[in-house]
């Protein structure tokens, strides 16, 4: 018996008609495998479960709508219609929609993007730049209408030295990613700002989606200026957050971070400035204290005299050791010669009975030495006196002079008792000068025509000096 004979085309069409009525718009779940994409953008893949496999195709128009990438092993739910592809006779599911199983499509897309960019190195810590120490010029990319901008400006305006440049953008929907990317590029190129805040208020994963898109991620990565993101709420992490140099939990926090940084730099500078002043004051005070300790007040006036006394003492002290050494040497010499004498008469010593002789000799030596020491001491003492006596001579050598009334020996110190016409003798280091008083504090002109005689008081130099001629003047001597 012969049944109806089909042509190839006809039988396929018939099957397709049957499929259309029963298998249009069905959902099939399975695991993705063997994914390929044609030059035109059509996606070919297979769905399989344990034992069976079904070829699938998503035409370019549907493939474009996919939010995530089809990966081998991904469990999905595909919606479409079963057909037989006429030209090849291939039984396939023409897919119009695919949803991942388990994760939402967006979440999966997020995971995939994150993984991809991380592998590329866009999130690495080495890439991240430090926020500027002085963030005075701040760029903001955000919605022109939202609360985020208002909140950020409220924070930034607290600081007197901050300039803000805003680029308003759409922050959700189809065009958002492009606008954000362009805005970032503009700000970076403008050279008007030191740092950029990329901000957006809170929303769903869908709302924030633009900040997960590759375009925005790459714009943040390419920005030459540090970018700080403040997107959504505390818990929201977007791809842009991972790429950014710094992530803030919210837009407001991003602004806070920058203000704090600026205030820190200011604080450091002011602090250092203040400390400079304190430290210098401290050094000055220490120096002043040292000077006062050395000078004293009245001490300053007496320095020459004190130096003189000290110098004398030093001179004497210098001589004493020399004298004592001389003494010791001569004593030693005597002992040695005594010893050599004793050696010449060994019998004397051995006899023992001559111990007293040796003893008395030693006794004599000791007395001799004592005598020498006493003599030396006296000599030193007298020299000391002499030195002291001589000191005025040293004063003269220094250029001072000593003035006395003619015939007197006591140096004049007070001009008050002088009268005009009196004769003065001035002793210099070399020579003397005789002069007459022209004018003195007392005023007055002397009526005396004869000069007063020498005074009763001792002379300056112990030369047995002149003495007691009566003082005619009766002015009580000087």
């Amino acid at each position, binding site marked *: 018996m012969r049944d109806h004979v089909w042509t190839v085309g006809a039988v396929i069409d018939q099957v397709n008609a049957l499929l259309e009525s029963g298998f249009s718009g069905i959902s099939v779940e399975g695991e993705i495998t063997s994914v390929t994409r044609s030059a035109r953008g059509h996606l070919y893949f297979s769905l399989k479960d344990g034992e069976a496999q079904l070829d699938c195709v998503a035409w370019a128009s549907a493939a474009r709508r996919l939010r995530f990438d089809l990966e081998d092993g991904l469990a999905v739910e595909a919606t479409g219609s079963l057909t037989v592809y006429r030209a090849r006779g291939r039984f396939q599911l023409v897919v119009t929609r695919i949803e991942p199983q388990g994760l939402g499509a967006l979440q999966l897309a997020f995971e995939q993007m994150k993984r991809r960019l991380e592998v*590329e190195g*866009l999130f690495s810590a080495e890439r991240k730049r430090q926020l*500027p*120490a*002085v963030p*005075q*010029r701040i*760029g903001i990319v955000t919605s022109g209408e939202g609360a985020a*901008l*208002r909140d950020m*400006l*409220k924070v930034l*305006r607290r*600081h*007197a*030295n*901050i*300039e*803000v*440049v*805003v*680029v*308003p953008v759409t922050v959700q929907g189809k065009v958002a990613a492009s606008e954000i990317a362009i*805005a970032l590029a*503009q*700000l*970076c190129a*403008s*050279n*008007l*700002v*030191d740092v950029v805040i990329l901000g957006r208020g809170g929303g769903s994963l869908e709302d924030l989606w633009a900040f997960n898109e590759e375009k925005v991620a*790459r714009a943040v*990565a*390419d*920005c*030459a*200026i540090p970018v700080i993101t403040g997107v959504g709420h505390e818990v929201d992490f977007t791809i842009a957050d991972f790429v950014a140099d710094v992530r803030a939990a919210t837009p407001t926090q991003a602004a806070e971070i920058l203000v704090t940084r*600026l205030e820190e*730099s*200011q604080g*450091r*500078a002011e602090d*250092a*400035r203040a*400390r*400079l002043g304190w*430290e*210098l004051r401290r*050094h*000055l005070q*220490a*120096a002043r204290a040292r000077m006062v300790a050395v000078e004293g007040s009245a001490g300053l006036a007496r320095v020459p005299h004190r130096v003189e006394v000290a110098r004398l003492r030093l001179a004497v002290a210098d001589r004493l050791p020399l004298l004592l050494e001389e003494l010791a040497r001569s004593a030693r010499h005597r002992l040695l010669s005594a010893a050599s004498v004793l050696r010449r008469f060994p019998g004397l010593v051995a006899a023992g009975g001559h111990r007293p002789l040796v003893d008395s000799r030693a006794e004599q030596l000791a007395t001799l030495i004592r005598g020498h020491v006493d003599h030396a001491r006296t000599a030193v003492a007298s020299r000391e006196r002499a030195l002291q006596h001589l000191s005025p001579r040293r004063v003269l050598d220094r250029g001072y002079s000593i003035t006395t009334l003619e015939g007197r020996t006591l140096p004049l110190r007070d001009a008050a008792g002088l009268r005009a016409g009196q004769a003065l003798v001035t002793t210099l280091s070399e020579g003397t000068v005789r002069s007459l008083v022209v004018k003195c504090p007392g005023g007055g002109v002397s009526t005396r025509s004869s000069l007063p005689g020498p005074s009763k008081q001792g002379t300056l130099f112990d030369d047995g000096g002149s003495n007691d001629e009566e003082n005619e003047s009766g002015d009580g001597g000087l």
Partner: protein
Amino acid sequence: MTKKTKAETVDSDERFEDQLERLEDIVGRLEDDSVGLEQALDLFEQGMGLAGKCRSRLERVEQRVSRLLEDGTTEEMEVETS
């Protein structure tokens, strides 16, 4: 991915950091008691110079909010801060 280029602003920022660090270093040296008065005065002068530069840098910018236009210029922007 394009290579990043240093903006002018980064250089001047580094200069500030550098000046601030040198200033703090000078203060540290001044804290040493053994420094003589002459040297202390010298350090003080240097430090004040740096402090002056830091201060003027920080006061260089005045408060202003503007919008960036497409042609790259800016215009003053009014935003309510309610």
